[in-house]
């Protein structure tokens, strides 16, 4: 759905994107992660055909952002990191305007506005002025404006910033429901835990580059991410784990390790038995709580070792 080749973007004082190449599959949620200043926002703006890159190409659904920027604008929704709303308008009018601005007729616009409001849980606030909404509800309204025209691609820049835990959970559900309705989402954040619930793939950026060079597959059916914790330290923990087939150690120290395991539940049982038999004093063995974080650090560590 999104193909990027050798993307270069320059500000007068800085090269913000240094030859980015990536691909995003349709109907997925891709997490765009990296530290502040890595170039995530610049990349999203180039993907949205809002800024013209210095070099390289971006194709969205087969359209080139240089040749067909307006066609691309029509088929995507974008929520910037700092967005504004028309505070004096009611929620309903904000959404009707968004639909009209995407070429809907007046009747269809009203219909689309009601549907978008329902999708984000704002049906009971249609008459409220946008200025009166809480931060979480404003976020929902901004997302509703971005999806009112049923875009194929949705780009969200730091969508959960400043939201409380309840609102974050609702946002996760909303994003998953958008994916299930056929949209392709790219969500940027520098807070990994918030992306974990809904991301299928992860692109790691650092200093204007994609670290590792390709999207990292998450939630692989056959490769569970497991964390093991020991009661007493073992210097050979990583080596011990690596000896077993299907195990890929991502991170380890003397008392704990995170690793991927190829196979089903029976494979886990067998591995646990084997580790106990090898004398490890295991106090916990189960799904890693922060899978995305572990994958991120594994990828960053791998990159550091390569360089």
């Amino acid at each position, binding site marked *: 759905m999104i193909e990027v080749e050798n993307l270069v973007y320059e500000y007068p004082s800085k090269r913000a994107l240094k030859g980015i190449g990536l691909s995003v599959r349709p109907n997925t949620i891709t997490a765009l992660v990296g530290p502040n200043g890595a170039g995530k926002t610049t990349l999203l703006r180039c993907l949205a055909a809002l800024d013209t890159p210095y070099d390289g190409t971006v194709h969205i659904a087969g359209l080139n952002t240089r040749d067909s920027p307006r066609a691309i604008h029509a088929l995507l929704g974008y929520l910037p990191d700092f967005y504004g709303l*028309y505070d004096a308008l009611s929620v309903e009018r904000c959404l009707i305007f968004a639909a009209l601005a995407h070429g809907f007729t007046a009747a269809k616009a009203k219909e689309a506005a009601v549907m978008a409001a329902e999708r984000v849980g704002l049906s009971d606030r249609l008459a409220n002025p946008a200025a009166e909404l809480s931060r979480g509800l404003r976020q929902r309204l901004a997302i509703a404006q971005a999806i009112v025209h049923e875009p194929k691609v949705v780009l969200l820049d730091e969508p959960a910033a400043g939201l409380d835990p309840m609102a974050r959970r609702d946002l996760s559900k909303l994003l998953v429901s958008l994916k299930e309705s056929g949209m392709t989402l790219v969500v940027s954040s520098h807070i990994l835990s918030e992306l974990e619930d809904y991301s299928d793939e992860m692109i790691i950026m650092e200093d204007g580059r994609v670290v590792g060079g390709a999207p990292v597959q998450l939630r692989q059916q056959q490769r569970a991410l497991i964390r093991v914790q020991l009661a007493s330290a073992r210097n050979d923990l990583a080596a011990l784990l690596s000896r077993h087939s299907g195990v890929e150690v991502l991170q380890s120290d003397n008392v704990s390790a995170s690793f991927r395991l190829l196979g089903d539940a029976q494979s886990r049982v067998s591995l646990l038995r084997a580790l106990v038999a090898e004398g490890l004093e295991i106090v916990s063995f189960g799904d890693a709580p922060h899978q995305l974080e572990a994958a991120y650090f594994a990828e960053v560590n791998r990159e550091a070792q390569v360089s």
Partner: protein
Amino acid sequence: MNAELQRNFWLELTPRRMTQMAVVLALILLTVNVTPLGRASEFVFEFLFYAIVVLWGTQSAALAVVGEIRGRTWDFQRLSALTPFEMTLGKLLGATSYVWFGGLICLLIILARDLRDDPSRFFADLFYFPAMGLLSQAIALFASLVAIRRRQTRTQFSAFQYQAVGVLAAYVVWQRLRDPLRSSDVMWWGWTIDGQEFHLASLAVFLAWALIGCYRLMRVELQVQTYPTVWLAFILFMAAYMAGFESLSFLPQFLQANDPLSLRLMVPVATLAFLTYVAVLFEPKDHVLYRWLAEMLAKGRTLAVMSRLQCWMIAYAAAMVSGIAVALVGMSGISGLAFLTAPMVVAGLGFLTRDLGIFLFFGLAPGQKRGDMPAIITLGVLYLILPRLLGAAGVPEPAMLFYPLPLAGWIGAIFAWVEAAAMWFLVVSIRGKQTAALPQT
């Protein structure tokens, strides 16, 4: 209906605001009719029209896009399916819809007065007031769209500047059409035209150019690929328009009386040079763009280059071509040319080239955030202070170092181009350093 127009109507034309405006204007009308104001009463609603449509309207127009940027809603609008034409119309007429509501009430009262007192003014006023108001607002919107390219939208003062440009345009129109001292006939390309008719026609033409300018800048803002053909057409129109005048009040009388042929040949070149200065002053000095243009040029991608050329580059090329043509005419020995000489034109082009270098040098200098002001000061020193200082120090003919003068001959032209070459050497050095400082991909 145009979505942007609709949204602005929702915000601007609320029943309460419309009632307030109508009631206030009705009270003023009542006051004017019951108070002995004499002849002043005739002009109260003209004054109100200027206050509402020009002063207030230019502010609304200047903030139409700038307000969206400040409110962080502009990206959302840029991503809409609205065409550049719809967006321009929606911004220009939508953001000013409330002031037009008040302006139209004033206009109706002005037209009623015309019918009562002087019906011959009716049609002129019917065109003059709305066209002048729309022109001032379009110019304010245009100025704000230019400023967006320069990323100068954050302060209240910036919006005031764009408003001031619109008000200035309205003042020029008012001066041409309402000042009784300027009602004489106009000699233009050999025709003698009634002054009122000529200036009303000019108003219509410049209104069209202002609207086209807004539309073209909106295309750029919405990322639609835009070639500089319309700008080229505009500068050529301006050259032809200015060359048509038999007399120009700002030029020396002896020249206008004694050497009309030189005047007719030089005015288009001077107009193109002036537009080059205006463009280079207001366009962003973007070394990333200049490097990109150089790379694309080296790769032979002419269309890509054309799509991102800056306006000053087009105007400069046009000034050079027309200047060289005029210099060749000057060298051909044609009779009737007293003032114009080829070396003077070549020197003029050299000084123009040097001055562009000065703007770019200060605009591209590292850490230089207000590049234009040092450039303007430098030009002030070069054109106003140094000639006098050198003259006072006893240097013979110092002006030829700084002005294109008819008596300077080819020496003056050589001085001009040496200065231009030195300036551009500095510009290229800066660009080279900045390119070298960038990390490689």
